[in-house]
């Protein structure tokens, strides 16, 4: 049953040292504010899971939150590389990180399998690629009817999934719309679910394309207006494309990165979007 809590309390309650933490949102609805709170709380040793690691994972990796990354595509969308991600992989700074990489379809089906209470998902994919040999979580499986060989991937059950949505009601029922990506599946796959929202409303009004998460599958709801900045929240905020471009320069060097984090994440006034 969802509890409405502060960001600090909710993150402290659900994200523990060493946890497997999925943070979803496909370009849209990226829970940046929650990621910043994890940095502030100094969580280490996390297995971070996300289809598209972008700026928020770059920041968390750069601050040493991650022991391992499970992902599909790690880049600054439309701009280029994630420099903190690269520094960790190429140079082990601030710590080496283990990589488990998938295609988007493969990782998506790991969430789907977990949400469905199945131990594995099946897809056409991976054969002939170097991913197959590199990743022990991909195995061949024969169709018992046609004999075809398909790829099986194990269900992925995060300890906690964090997503952002437009609204919740006072009972903690959640409503999101627009591009909702794999948010529902990632939430239903997890042991604990934290949803940051733009606002609490008296009553949720269903909209076209709306996805509801009832309060009995959500643990914490946190009001975090503009909590997706510089990503966006349809109906509430626009993507700040310049911030993505700026991040390229900020993140290139370790010291400019640390200075930015100090100012925009760790400083007492930094719980506002930055």
């Amino acid at each position, binding site marked *: 049953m969802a509890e409405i809590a502060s960001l600090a309390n909710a993150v402290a309650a659900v994200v523990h040292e060493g946890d497997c933490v999925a943070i979803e949102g*496909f*370009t*849209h609805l990226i829970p940046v504010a929650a990621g910043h709170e994890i940095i502030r709380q100094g969580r280490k040793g996390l297995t971070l899971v996300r*289809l*598209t690691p972008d700026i928020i994972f770059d920041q968390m990796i750069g601050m040493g939150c991650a022991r391992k990354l499970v*992902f*599909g*595509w*790690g*880049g600054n*969308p*439309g701009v280029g*590389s*994630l420099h903190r*991600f*690269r520094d960790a*992989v*190429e140079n082990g700074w601030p710590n080496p990180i283990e990589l488990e*990489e*998938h*295609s*988007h*379809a493969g990782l*998506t*089906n790991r*969430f*789907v399998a977990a949400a469905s209470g199945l131990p594995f998902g099946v*897809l*056409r*994919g*991976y*054969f*002939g*690629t*170097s*991913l197959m040999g*590199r990743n022990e979580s991909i195995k061949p499986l024969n169709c018992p009817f046609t004999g*075809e*060989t*398909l790829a099986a991937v194990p269900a992925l059950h995060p300890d906690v999934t964090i997503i952002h949505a437009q609204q919740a009601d006072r009972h903690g029922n959640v409503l999101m719309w*627009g*591009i*909702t*990506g*794999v948010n*529902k*599946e990632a939430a239903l796959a997890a042991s604990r679910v934290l949803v940051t929202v733009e606002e609490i409303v008296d009553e949720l009004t269903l909209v076209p*394309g709306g*996805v509801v998460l009832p309060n009995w599958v959500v643990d914490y709801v946190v009001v975090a207006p503009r909590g997706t900045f510089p990503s*966006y929240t*349809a109906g509430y905020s*626009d*993507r700040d*494309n*310049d911030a993505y*471009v700026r991040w390229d320069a900020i993140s290139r060097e370790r010291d400019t990165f640390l200075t930015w984090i100090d100012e925009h994440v760790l400083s007492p006034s930094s719980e506002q979007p930055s």
Partner: protein
Amino acid sequence: MTTVSATGREHDGTSDYDRDDMMIVAASRALLGHKVCFVGIGLPSTAANLARATHTPDLVLIYESGTIGAKPSRLPLSIGDGELALTADAVVSVPEIFNYWLQGGRVEVGFLSAAQMDRYGNLNSTVIGGYDHPTVRLPGAGGAPEIAGSCREVIVLIRQSHRTFVEHLDFRTTVGFGDGSGDRERFGLRGAGPTLVITDLGLLRPDEQTCELTMTALHPGVELQDALDATPWKLRVAPDLGRTDPPSATELANLRSLLATQERK
């Protein structure tokens, strides 16, 4: 009107065009007569929207974020751009896009790019150097492996040079034709694979027997020797090597209009 394209060159709005423009125009032409196209950001998205503007207004654009039938009035800046959701016939979940629409075999043409490609159209977008200690860590697979596996055809957009055309990929992220004829079937890949590679120098298509990529046309102003020099292996050349038509005035005008819609110029 003077605009600056995504690659930073100036245009005077006339018949001046650069190699990126030629690649985009060639890609948009390849969509003529097609119905459903899986689009990534960058040149592919520009090419698909140029096709909509120029000759195939009903082309259905599917972006990996879940937007089916997006009709963006400006070039999107990411595959999850709000403009795509607002203009789409339907917005579905990412699992649905991959499972029902892509893997379901409903997409005719997919676009891909990569940091490296080999002679069989296999692609690397994962690492330069060794996997465990790479020289350059690239973004990774994303949607590419399944786009290459399930679209009925794939068009690869890639510049032609010794950096991008390589004898041996450092990592095979995405399968083109594997080690040649029969490998796609062996891997259970359903589509026809990379039936067209568009570079800044010209067009390559797989040999019908061996699947090795063969230069079938050169862009205006490009000599065969340029292509041979840009390729580290002995490049196969079609006996009837063709010549790409230069971008028409309409194509260029539409392209300029599209690029002008980008917020970041």
